[in-house]
């Protein structure tokens, strides 16, 4: 009974050990990295980059809760704002690529060589 009450008082995130969050975000981050390296569609590459950033967000929130320090959660807001700006610019560049080449396959973008 005592243990259940203790658990209820604990922060919901803290029920799970921090290493599990570390593992989960490392796996998500790796999936994102592999996506950027091996997918050929520009939109999916953007999604993979977002996955990398969201893995970082998850990790920051988990650490922030375990350390009882709010700085990590504030950092997440900065990352989300910057990621939104980056995607806005990225999709705009992708639009001009599409207008010129009529494709979002990045194999077309290999004209710069030497």
């Amino acid at each position, binding site marked *: 009974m005592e243990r259940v009450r203790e658990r209820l008082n604990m922060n919901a995130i803290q029920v799970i050990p921090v290493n599990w969050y570390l593992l989960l975000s490392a796996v998500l981050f790796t999936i994102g990295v592999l996506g950027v390296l091996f997918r050929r569609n520009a939109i999916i590459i953007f999604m993979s980059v977002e996955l990398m950033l969201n893995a970082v967000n998850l990790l920051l929130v988990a650490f922030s809760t375990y350390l009882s320090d709010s700085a990590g959660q504030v950092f997440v807001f*900065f990352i989300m704002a910057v990621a939104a700006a980056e995607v806005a610019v990225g999709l705009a560049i992708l639009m001009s690529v599409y207008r010129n080449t009529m494709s979002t396959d990045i194999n077309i973008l290999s004209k710069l060589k030497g």
Partner: protein
Amino acid sequence: MKALILLSSLGVIALLAEIFSFKKLLYPLVIIGLITTFIFNAFDWGTDRIYFNMMRYDDFAVAFSSVLIGVSFLWFIMADGFFKEESNMTDYFALVIFSLAGAVIMVSYSNMAMLFLGIEILSIPMYVLAGSKKDDVLSNEAGFKYLIMGAFASGFLLFGIALIYGATGSFDIVEIAQTVAAGAASSIFYAGLLLMLVGMAFKVSAAPFHFWAPDVYQGAPTPVTAYMATIVKTAAFAAFLRLFYTCFQGSAATWTSIVVVMAGLTMLAGNITAVLQTSAKRMLAYSSVAHAGYMLLGLVALNQYSQGSILMYTLAYSVGSITSFGVLGYVAKAKGGDAVDSFNGLAKTNPFLAFVMTVALLSLAGIPPTAGFFAKYYIFTAAFQAGHAWLVLVAILASLIGVYYYFRIIIAMYFKHSNHEVTIEVSANHKLLFVITVLLTIALGLMPDFVIGLL
């Protein structure tokens, strides 16, 4: 801090110029604004103020901000054609000035959050500018590659920051250093350090993470390439040095050997690949990769000389790059291509441009009495005194390879003949700019102590 406030206001004014239609006044306004910022920035010298534990304006920050603002002043004179051609020039002004504000944040941060924000404020406008020739597929490709690689590198940097936060409980670079010195360093901390190292290596285009740089530099419009090679590289190196000098100095044993290998690879890869290029623009791009390798020597040294020598190096390299990209812009426009052969016979048709280019290339190659020689000399000495004799030997070999491809352009200008000779008209602004950069290159070569002694 004054510099940051003034630059941000200047950016907002540039955006307002479109609405209140004083577009014609904007160019002189920006030039005056930059001079004002430079002067007010100099007033911060020696004050060493800390703002909300986020920014620290010590002498390091003021010195590098001065270099950034001074070089961007030269860049604005060089790139005036870039702004006249376009109808939405106010956007370009605003983008360049905001990215300069990001560069100033990058040299003065004292918190990981500001490092991240500075890098992104610098980079996001550069993605747009690299892809700013909307109808040109090459420019599109450059913008897209720069964006993907930039975001990818930011991901590594952020994962590193998150791990270090988990290990030390802080984003403040001084607090992290203190926690680590107190013996709290765990495997999570070292994993974070290595991920941050990878992220920063991407940003400064150090081998083996340099492959994006030549493509982006070649595809982007030439003035934007010059901006990336000077301002962006200076800011990235200052941020790199500040991070490792302040925050990770205590754990130098872990990362020094990695950075030594990285520096050697970068110098060799950059210089050897540059020899094989036929396009002068791409050659200068690889030479910029090679220069990143030399600058890594100052980071490896991590002694009292490294800050001053990197300051000197970034200044000498930036002045040389602004001049060479300026001349390249003229030649490429007149001959319709940026191949090394288009420089053939330039000395006969246009001795002034050929002389200016020669001085800039001699400085980049590191031949005395130019600024580049002393920049290299000081940075090699710093690394040598830190006990990296082998790395200095590799650096000297790499710069000998460098001399070969810089002299290819000089030989093309003076000893080869062109089939169709075109006399290039140089505008009065650019004549003044080239005279200033040549004088600056030689003056820095004669009195290097003036810059080295600052830090």
